């Protein structure tokens, strides 16, 4: 698995979502905190300014000699030492108040009686920096009055809010990064799936998608696709083997056919030419039968015939089958016995034409290979399946052949019988189409072959 290039990541849904959410949250939180920061700060400032202004007005309203006393009084009342006062004479000497002597460096230079933010160095009680909003104005007697408020608390609050904003931004950043990191592994998995799929589509049909064992949606998807690939691979191998069989098995008859026609052409005697041509015709008919059978198998295997499915009662079908084959069987001294519960309908969903054909093939085989005696056909229904079986007393199949008997062109060794060896393949194709299973077993006693079809029901 290769590391995913960052430029690839940005295309994925996971990544995009993480990023989007991260941005939205950041934006929202930032806006909220900014609003808080702004309005709370403003509010507190306004409150401070109200007090500052009213202090100024009150002090100015006093007759000049009383001003210092009022200032002292206000300072005593002000427990928190937030309010600031400074009454200066014309030379800048402090007459009353808790502000320090007016230096030319008093930051507020204008006497506009408006509050201004200032930062000043103060020396009492200890050297410190004072943050304040000060209002300054000339009074009628030439003195300079400065009132104000210590804005340390406001600044403190603003710092707290700013810290909160930064922390929030940091947290959101961490979350977003975490989201992005978490999405890397799924992205890698998907990317690996993409790579493997591309290789598969290029012809490496034995590859499979990786399954992480986490049993999540990606695993489920991989599982389904792998299953489909298994089916596809099996089908491709089937096709290949079928094609091989066809090529192999049709070569002989075609060679014979050619030979016959050639000899017929060379023959000088009309009669023997005619015989040769008749034989050639027979070979051709046999070939056509084989081709027809192969076409049937292909058509049935393709599953398209499921559209012809309907409810079939197997009981009358079995009876019709026995009735159809009885004359043939009797000529060979074979009795056909049907066994099924009387007055019972056994219904499965399927194609009656194909089912009858499958049964015909099986019974035909049984009759072909049976000695005189009887063949039993049974039909029974249990809770979860319908079973149909044909039991003969013939030689059965060699154990080694049981697995491959249904492959195309298989012929049992002792068959001097005519036929194209495709009968069982057709039966297999039909049972597969119906979702049923086909079982071939040699019966221990009294011997013979048992062929059973099991149709699941319910």
């Amino acid at each position, binding site marked *: 698995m290769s590391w995913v290039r960052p430029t690839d990541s940005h295309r994925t849904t996971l990544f995009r979502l993480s990023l989007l959410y991260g941005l939205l949250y950041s934006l929202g939180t930032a806006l909220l905190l900014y609003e808080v920061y702004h309005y709370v700060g403003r509010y507190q400032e306004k409150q401070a300014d109200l007090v500052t202004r009213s202090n100024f007005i009150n002090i100015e309203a006093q007759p000049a000699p009383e001003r210092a006393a009022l200032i002292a009084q206000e300072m005593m009342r002000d427990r928190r030492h937030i309010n600031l006062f400074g009454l200066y004479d014309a030379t800048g000497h402090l007459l009353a108040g808790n502000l320090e002597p007016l230096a030319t460096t008093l930051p507020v230079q204008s006497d506009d009686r408006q509050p201004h933010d200032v930062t000043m160095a103060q020396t009492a009680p200890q050297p410190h920096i004072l943050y304040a909003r000060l209002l300054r104005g000339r009074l009628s007697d030439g003195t300079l009055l400065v009132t104000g408020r210590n804005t340390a608390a406001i600044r403190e609050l603003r710092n707290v809010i700013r810290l909160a904003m930064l922390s929030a931004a940091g947290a959101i950043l961490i979350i977003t990064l975490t989201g992005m990191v978490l999405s890397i592994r799924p992205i890698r998995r998907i990317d690996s799936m993409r790579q493997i799929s591309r290789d598969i589509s290029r012809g490496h049909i034995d590859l499979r998608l990786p399954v992480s064992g986490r049993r999540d949606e990606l695993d489920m998807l991989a599982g389904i696709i792998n299953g489909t690939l298994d089916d596809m691979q099996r089908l491709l191998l089937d096709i290949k083997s079928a094609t091989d069989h066809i090529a192999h098995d049709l070569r002989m008859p075609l060679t014979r056919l050619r030979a016959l026609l050639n000899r017929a052409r060379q023959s000088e005697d009309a009669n023997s030419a005619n015989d040769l041509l008749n034989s050639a015709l027979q070979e051709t008919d046999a070939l056509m039968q084989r*081709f027809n059978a192969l076409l049937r198998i292909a058509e049935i295997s393709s599953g398209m*015939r499921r559209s012809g499915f309907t409810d079939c009662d197997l009981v009358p079908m079995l009876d019709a089958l026995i009735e*159809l084959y009885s*004359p*043939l069987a009797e000529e060979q001294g074979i009795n056909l016995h049907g066994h099924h519960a009387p007055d019972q309908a056994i219904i499965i969903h399927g194609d009656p*034409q194909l089912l009858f*054909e499958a049964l*015909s093939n099986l019974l*035909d085989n049984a009759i072909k290979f049976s000695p005189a005696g009887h063949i039993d056909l049974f039909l029974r229904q249990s809770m979860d399946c319908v079973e149909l079986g044909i039991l003969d007393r013939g030689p059965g199949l060699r154990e080694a052949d049981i697995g491959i008997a249904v492959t195309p062109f298989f012929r049992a060794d002792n068959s001097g019988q005519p036929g194209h060896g495709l009968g069982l393949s057709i039966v297999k194709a039909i049972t597969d189409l119906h979702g049923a299973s086909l079982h071939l077993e040699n019966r221990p006693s009294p011997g013979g072959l048992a062929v059973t079809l099991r149709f699941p029901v319910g």
Partner: protein
Amino acid sequence: MRILIIEDDETTARELAQELGNHGFSVDQAADGPSGLALAASGAYDAITLDRMLPGLDGLSIIQRLRAQGVSTPVLLLSALGNVDDRVAGLRAGGDDYLTKPFVSEEVAARLEALIRRRQAPADSTRLSYRDLDIDLISRVARRQQVDLHLSPTEFRLLECLMRNSDRIVTRTMLFEAVWGYHFDPGTNLIEVHVRRLRRKVDGPDQEALINTVRGAGYVLGQAD
């Protein structure tokens, strides 16, 4: 008897024409849909063989148009498509019979003859007779020279099929379809055995053999021409 072959494959058409000619039919050919339809619409033919896949106009459309124009000439559809749906579609469109490729020409000939015969026979007859054989379709009794043959239901249906096509060859698959209703090739022996049983009952030792086998083709009641 005039037959129209509508088939775009030259070899198939020639082969068919040859075979039908041997059976005494006079044959016309059309190699594509539109000209085939034009000829068929003239109503001058006793039967038509129609390939389902044709250049210009496909087989099913041709039948539908013919029937819409009131032409009731029997049509035998030939097609490479063999599944149930296609057969049903073909017959529903107005076709009378359906054969899948690859087919043997003798089969085509036999079925065409059957179609023509079916057209000629009155549809509502309840009795069929041939020489000294007669069968009653209601009571399901078959008699020869007035003697009840005691046929089983299957044997009766076999005989009925042969009688409806008397003096014409009926192939193995035609019999299988008519008597048992299934559309696959059951193999030579199976039908042969049933016919043999029928023959044993119908053709007594000193009676004229009415049920005859035509090697490589099928069976005939009487003599094929």
